């Protein structure tokens, strides 16, 4: 194997920065003498749009992140289709249309600035508003002036490919629910604070003496404020308790409801008779604090259930159907049926599964299978929806569309995975059922026992017990600690969707890593170039014009700016390029293509394959053949060719060099794996790549070969995760659509940066910083968070136990109960906010 220094010896970077994104401009793109330099067409387009419309201020925004623009160049004709409009667009009587679009590529505050300036770029757009957390843009425009497709094209050229948001119905419901909950909390908060003030007056009067008329006045004030708090925000608990009674289950809301009713009734009785404590402050405060805890929990669960909708929004919406008359029409993808013939252009995502009828191209199937190398497709090959056509147009006969397609089935599995999480919630409910039963029994025992001693205080003591055991602090402890941790983690670039993920990450179990894009960089880079230096400019000159991913890697890998003139060139799809550069015949491409072009003897190659009798070697050779490659004498000299894509270079009919492209392992991968193993985690790999490649990576990062599984389809990964999950919690870390189902099925799914949006949507946690270091940080932070939760629960239980003991012996008085309940909640709040769970430099 080549050592690293040798590998990168020939790779130099240019020092020209892109005028838009600030990243290094690849050599083939540098324009000598030009004032502005751009790394890609996307960046050039955005730069000119910004300047045309006087939006240069974009470049002064403080939090602009450096990312090259990724526009797709789609036409978005389907966005104007009547079917599309009836599905996603709402129109007001005044002639203003409104749509919600899910935008890809939204990552920072500057995106908000840019997207919301679309009205300046496209006349006729009235308003554009972006919700950065959910990447949802609300667009309002006048259909008379402009079309939605031109708006979508503008967004696309700015680097935000748009998709219709397909979860509108649920979104409306969710917004109503969220707003309702906020209103309840606001009302309950205002009422309970004022009841508290009235009660404070009563307590001080109780200590220092107060005239009867004022005492009565404060009692009635407190009563009149508590009643609305119970019937409006507090109604929630009665509804839920009633539902629990009807289904004969024990629910935490049951003792809450009993306590609220009992406390309030007793308070009313005492108010009417002008004797004894009133409990109103406790009752109102209970409603407020419990609602707060519930709201925090609701928001946590929300984020976790959004996933399937966003994934669904990503599926292509349009297809170019070839009619019987040969005419091509753009129609919504929903309308495709098996047997349709569709055109798929370069840069398009396939809308359905099918068989290639004509055209040769290479597809990026990493989304579906995790295979990092572009796969060549020829007529007769099966292709799948969701994969990206990289090279040239193909014509495909649809075999499966819509619900039947492979992508749709994976989406369905993601939804299934999200639903499957329910048992955890059920368990929590059952535990609180026990709590409920114990509290109710205790209250009854107290009432009965005191009945024999002193009838006048029996009911008061039982109510005191119910109020004091009410799990305010208990209900607050977990959501508060989780919310605090999630907030801190977000500042560190770790986005956590639900508290249950933190809980399951705190105990070591099995962790499965995807290879492509997770352990490795996920893109092709030049790892080795063999051959004399004078060859490089010739190769680069040819490759400078190609859009093939390997050509891009060539440009990045060979840092040259001065290139010889290309006299003629010919691109052969899925094979390579031949041409005449500076008076010499140059052929660059797959070994088979290069050898055929220069007329080399094929028997030498067959002889070479016979001598590689090592099983792994043979497999790689077969693998290479499957992708159209053939091994050469030069190649067999280096066993490092495993998992690498080989490109031969011939000049004047002689092979003079070769280049190896591969997916480099992330620099922090080995250290991260070692740390995780030390913390007790069982680390494994599941990848769609060939077993031999996976074994190599496993060895490099220190994972036992028995735990490295290759050749895994998306369905295979799902099966691995499901099998493991049946026995113990399993954590899946991945980046592609091919991991989405496994990520959703895992106990905890984690998506790494740069991954497909689908896996981000399916994951419980997404890491926005590159590398595996954030993963280690997440797992360590989760462990600390659980410590904080446990501390909070212990503290609140201690308060409750003391309260129960005091109430049972009749030692509790209203003043003490009123002080004790908020004090326990306050302790828990302070503990949750003060602890550093995720912080800079935390171990």
């Amino acid at each position: 194997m080549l050592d690293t220094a040798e590998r990168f010896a020939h790779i130099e970077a240019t020092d020209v920065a892109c005028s838009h994104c600030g990243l290094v401009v690849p050599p083939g793109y540098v324009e000598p003498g030009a004032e502005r330099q751009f790394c890609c067409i996307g960046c050039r387009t955005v730069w000119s749009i910004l300047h045309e419309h006087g939006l240069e201020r974009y470049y002064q925004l403080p939090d602009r992140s450096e990312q090259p623009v990724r526009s797709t160049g789609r036409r978005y004709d389907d966005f104007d289709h009547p079917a599309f409009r009836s599905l996603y667009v709402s129109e007001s009587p005044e002639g203003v249309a409104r749509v919600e679009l899910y935008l890809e590529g939204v990552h920072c505050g500057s995106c908000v600035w840019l997207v919301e300036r679309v009205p300046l770029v496209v006349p006729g757009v009235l308003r554009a508003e972006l919700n950065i957390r959910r990447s949802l843009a609300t667009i309002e425009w006048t259909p008379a002036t402009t079309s939605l497709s031109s708006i979508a094209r503008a967004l696309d050229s700015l680097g935000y490919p748009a998709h219709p948001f397909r979860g509108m119905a649920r979104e409306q419901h969710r917004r109503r629910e969220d707003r309702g909950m906020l209103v309840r909390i606001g009302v309950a908060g205002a009422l309970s604070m004022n009841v508290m003030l009235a009660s404070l007056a009563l307590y001080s009067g109780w200590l220092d003496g107060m005239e009867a008329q004022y005492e009565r006045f404060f009692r009635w004030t407190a009563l009149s404020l508590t009643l609305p708090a119970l019937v409006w925000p507090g109604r929630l608990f009665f509804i839920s308790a009633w539902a629990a009674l009807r289904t004969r289950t024990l629910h935490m809301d049951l003792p809450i409801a009993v306590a609220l009713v009992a406390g309030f009734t007793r308070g009313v009785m005492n108010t009417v008779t002008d004797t004894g404590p009133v409990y109103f402050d406790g009752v109102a405060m209970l409603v407020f604090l419990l609602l707060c805890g519930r709201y925090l929990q609701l928001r946590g669960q929300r984020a976790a259930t959004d996933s399937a909708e966003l994934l669904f929004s990503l599926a292509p919406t349009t297809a170019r159907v070839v009619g019987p008359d040969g005419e091509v029409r753009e129609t919504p993808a929903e309308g495709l049926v098996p047997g349709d013939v569709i055109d798929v252009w370069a840069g398009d995502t396939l809308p359905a599964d099918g068989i290639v009828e004509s055209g040769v191209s290479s597809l990026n199937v990493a989304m579906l299978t995790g295979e990092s190398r572009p796969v060549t497709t020829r007529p007769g090959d099966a292709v799948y929806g969701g994969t990206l056509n990289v090279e040239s147009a193909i014509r495909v006969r649809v075999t499966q569309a819509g619900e039947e397609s492979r992508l749709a089935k994976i989406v369905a599995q993601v939804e299934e995975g999200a639903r499957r999480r329910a048992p955890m919630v059920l368990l929590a409910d059952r535990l609180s059922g026990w709590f409920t039963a114990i509290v109710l029994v205790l209250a009854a025992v107290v009432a009965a026992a005191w009945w024999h001693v002193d009838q006048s205080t029996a009911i008061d003591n039982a109510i005191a017990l119910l109020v004091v055991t009410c799990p305010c602090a208990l209900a607050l402890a977990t959501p508060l600690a989780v919310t605090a941790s999630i907030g801190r983690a977000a500042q560190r670039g770790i986005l956590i969707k639900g508290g249950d993920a933190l809980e399951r990450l705190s105990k070591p179990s099995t962790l499965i890593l995807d290879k492509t894009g997770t352990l490795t960089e996920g893109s092709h880079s030049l790892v080795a170039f063999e051959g004399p230096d004078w060859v490089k400019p010739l190769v680069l000159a040819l490759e400078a014009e190609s859009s093939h991913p390997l050509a891009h890697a060539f440009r990045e890998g060979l840092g040259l700016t001065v290139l010889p003139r290309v006299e003629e060139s010919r691109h052969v799809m899925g094979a390579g390029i031949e041409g005449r550069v500076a008076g010499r015949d140059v052929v660059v491409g797959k070994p088979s293509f290069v050898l055929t072009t220069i007329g080399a003897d094929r028997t030498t190659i067959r002889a070479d394959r016979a001598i590689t009798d090592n099983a792994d070697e043979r497999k790689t050779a077969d693998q290479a053949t499957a992708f159209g490659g053939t091994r050469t004498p030069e190649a067999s000299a280096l066993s490092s060719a495993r998992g690498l894509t080989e490109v031969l270079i011939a000049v004047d009919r002689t092979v003079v060099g070769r280049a190896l492209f591969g997916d480099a392992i992330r620099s922090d991968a080995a250290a991260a794996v070692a740390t995780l193993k030390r913390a007790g985690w069982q680390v494994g790999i599941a990848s769609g790549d060939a077993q031999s490649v996976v074994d190599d990576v496993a060895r490099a990062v220190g994972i036992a070969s028995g735990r490295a599984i290759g050749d895994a389809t998306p369905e295979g990964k799902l099966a691995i995760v499901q099998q493991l999950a049946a026995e113990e919690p399993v954590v899946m870390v991945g980046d592609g659509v091919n991991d989405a189902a496994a990520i959703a099925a895992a106990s905890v799914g984690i998506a790494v940066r740069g991954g497909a949006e689908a896996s981000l949507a399916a994951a419980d946690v997404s890491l926005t910083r590159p590398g595996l270091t954030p993963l280690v940080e997440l797992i360590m932070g989760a462990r600390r968070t659980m410590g904080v939760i446990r501390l909070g629960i212990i503290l609140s239980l201690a308060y409750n136990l003391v309260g129960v003991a005091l109430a049972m012996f009749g030692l509790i008085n209203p003043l003490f109960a009123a002080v004790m309940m908020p004090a326990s909640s306050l302790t828990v709040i302070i503990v949750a906010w003060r602890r550093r769970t995720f912080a800079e430099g935390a171990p």
Partner: protein
Amino acid sequence: MSVIFLVLPLALLIVAAAVAAFVWAARRGQYDDLDTPAIRAVQDD
């Protein structure tokens, strides 16, 4: 001290006004997105 009979209802009226304002704001969706407006405010020219 009897001024409390007047002042307390008055104070409660003010509370009622504040609650009404909050309910109005929440129902109009002003609390729907708490992240983006913060960014918008910093960037607006």
